């Protein structure tokens, strides 16, 4: 046990808080995702399986929560790792902008990927 100087979180207050919020969403969402897909609903994964799950609003909510929270948590986590390796000033801002573009792009791509199941 020791006293130490805690500086303002390098990544910013909102990313810090959202990292915690998305962590809780992922703990619950991944427990549902992994348990229902691999323990309860055992069997070969297929296009029709996915369609069956995504016909229920519950799984649509879980899947989109996992997509959004997962991307935020993963990319902000990656950003926090990179901030330990010399991303300061303008480079830090550029990193944050690139991370957001990648994240929003991936969320759009993930939505497009699920679309045929959602609309069938």
């Amino acid at each position, binding site marked *: *046990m020791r006293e130490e100087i805690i500086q303002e979180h390098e990544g910013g207050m909102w990313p810090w808080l959202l990292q915690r919020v998305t962590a809780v969403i992922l703990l619950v969402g*991944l427990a549902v995702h992994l348990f229902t897909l691999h323990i309860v609903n055992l069997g070969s994964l297929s296009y029709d399986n996915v369609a069956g799950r995504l016909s229920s609003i519950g799984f649509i909510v879980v899947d989109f929560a996992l997509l959004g929270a997962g991307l935020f948590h993963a990319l902000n986590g990656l950003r926090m790792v990179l901030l330990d390796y010399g991303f300061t000033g303008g480079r830090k801002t550029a990193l944050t902008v690139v991370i957001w573009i990648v994240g929003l792009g991936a969320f759009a791509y*993930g939505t497009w990927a699920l679309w045929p199941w959602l609309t069938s």
Partner: protein
Amino acid sequence: MTEKNRETANVGAGLWKGTGMWAWLLHRISGLVLVVYLFAHIGVISQGQAQGQAAFDRLFRTLESPVFILLDVALVGAVLYHGFNGVRVLLMDVGVGIRGHKTVYYAVMGAGIVCLGLFAVTALAFIV
């Protein structure tokens, strides 16, 4: 830059030794593995939209080979480590288990190993 004194445990990269260091290092490594997996996962699932039902189902037959099942178990291990150690981090953020952080670490790791056992037994049915 605001600064304030706060009581902390030897956790994270703050002090480069002991259980806290390993917990932090493994959290970071498993996190990076999971970032790569998340994008691979989105890429695989998107093949339904990109290439259609037949190609999607063919891809999943490939992903059921023993090598990929073993990789799945390793993946679940990474998820469980990151998740259970993450619970410990969240508890410390609200001031729980700072003094006893090593005890909490071993407790959550025990819970993680039990869960990994459940998934490993399930995975075994696909290999043998």
